[in-house]
């Protein structure tokens, strides 16, 4: 998993621009840089931790402890198509667990998927239960990659699998 990625000029320019948002302390740019890295390269590798630390004049541990604290950062690739299903009470009352199981079976995903993506064998899909997505009145809700969907019935879930697949 330790294949180094090449960092483009465009990526570095984006990073440098974001750092200017924090004139008092560069360290504040840690989360934004982790987001940028994960969006670009899919997950936060050791290389990411070291590169970001060097960029912000920090020790790698200062960045690594964020990766292990904040649920959205992952240290392994997720599927190409990522489902994040809301697990919390209002969605659960509206059928969130049933939706999760339906999608998991439909996309042939093994594994638990509670707080951390479970990935299908071919790497195409991943699914994970996440906590409240703050749309409790229209449950069950989920995200596909960065897109948000509400009132997701099993039929609608099937359509989403087709649409993104």
């Amino acid at each position, binding site marked *: 998993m330790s294949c180094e990625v090449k960092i483009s000029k465009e990526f570095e320019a984006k990073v440098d621009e974001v750092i200017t948002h924090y004139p008092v302390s560069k360290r*504040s740019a840690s989360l934004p840089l982790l987001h940028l890295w994960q969006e670009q390269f899919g997950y936060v590798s050791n290389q990411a931790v070291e590169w970001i630390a060097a960029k912000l004049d920090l020790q790698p541990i200062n960045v690594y402890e964020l990766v292990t604290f904040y649920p959205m950062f992952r240290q392994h690739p997720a599927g190409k198509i990522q489902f994040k299903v809301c697990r919390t009470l209002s969605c659960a*009352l509206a059928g969130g667990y049933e939706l999760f199981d339906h999608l998991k079976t439909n996309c042939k995903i093994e594994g638990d998927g509670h707080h951390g993506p479970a990935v299908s064998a071919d790497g195409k899909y991943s699914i994970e239960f*996440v906590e409240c997505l703050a749309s*409790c009145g229209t449950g069950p809700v989920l995200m596909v990659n*960065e897109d948000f969907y509400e009132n997701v019935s099993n039929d609608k879930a099937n359509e989403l699998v087709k649409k993104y697949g």
Partner: protein
Amino acid sequence: MAIAEKRLILKNIDVAGYTNDIECYIKNGGYEVLRKAIAMKPQEIVAEVKASGLRGRGGAGFPTKNTKPVYLICNADESEPGTFKDRQIIHKDPHQLIEGMIISCFANNVKLAYLYIRGEFPEGARILERACDEARQKNLLGKNILGTGYDLEIYIHRGAGAYICGEETGLIESLEGKRAYPRIKPPYFPAVLGLYMSPTIVNNVETLCNVIHVLQMGGANFSKLGKPNNTGTRVLCVSGDVVKPGYYEFEVGALTLGQLIYDVCGGIRDGKKIKAIIPGGSSAKVLKAGEIYKIKQKQADGSMADVEMRLEDIPMDFDTMAAIGSMAGSGGVIVMDETRSMPECLANLSEFYAHESCGQCTPCREGSLWMKKLTSRIRDGKASANDVGVLKNVADNIAGRTICAFGEACSWPVQSFVTKFKDEFETVAGNGAKK
């Protein structure tokens, strides 16, 4: 007859043809209040807000002491289960929030502000970035705003999925690029030692939007909305087993819990009955159908008397909700009908809190995990009736022993569910063992 909504914050939300760009906002009177405010003296704005009686909707309100704030932070990390108002404002009326922030910054001579938005709102973050760009192009933000010589920058900062960032000092740590471990108060009140150890204003989305409406109406007029000490409007978010879940805005205390559920939300689905209600976000203590509350109420002649009230008759305001042992909290109302299993609902919430505890204080880190284990064991019928008492005991030993209010937030649901539905918990606990 349904009580009429009073929409201030949600004025533009879901209006046909309303779009979230600056042109539409301006066409509907947007940024007029900013133009007015920027011609006022900052002290005059602060005086209007004080006169309005506006209470922070989760935030600390405007500083009243002699600290000069250096930074302003908008807390848009709304993650309390059952609460879903920020998403609407951010996605559908972002300029209302930006205008509220600019006015609040100007009133306090703040030159740098951050808008901390939850990581789960990537689209919301893009919308707000675009809104800031549009405002910069119109010289409403950035250098020399509207030619007054006042400079302000607002940056959008995304969280990364941690509920604890909604706690203001945790949010500040997070914004400094660290783990979101809340700071101990005192001494780390944000108004004194906030971001980068400087005085900082932290307010939530609803409060900052309200500043516009306070100035538009005038503080004295605004204070006539709602009830004394509970002024203004409140956005209530209703979810769970009602016919019409959704977000509704009313004057504070204008309606009762019963009116909200039956008249506004169309009652319980499939003609069922209420079993339990969480009235103010998942941390609020649960209310049980059929309960009668005794509360002290001011009579017409000014004397105080005990009044008996049914659950349905409770007015939705901060003080009454506190008087009956729960809280208005975030305004998130979750309704559970008679078919719902209380152990199952509580196990769901306990899993949430176990996942979200930041791990800094031992009672909360260990206790929230044990409460998750015990509640799921009870839910699955693999416990004994005794375990219900053990569960309650764990909860009783968290609250008051932690740095931040998360300790209370995770133990209140457990304490209230287990006390009010004791029989059900004890029966379900041993079910699996008998089979």
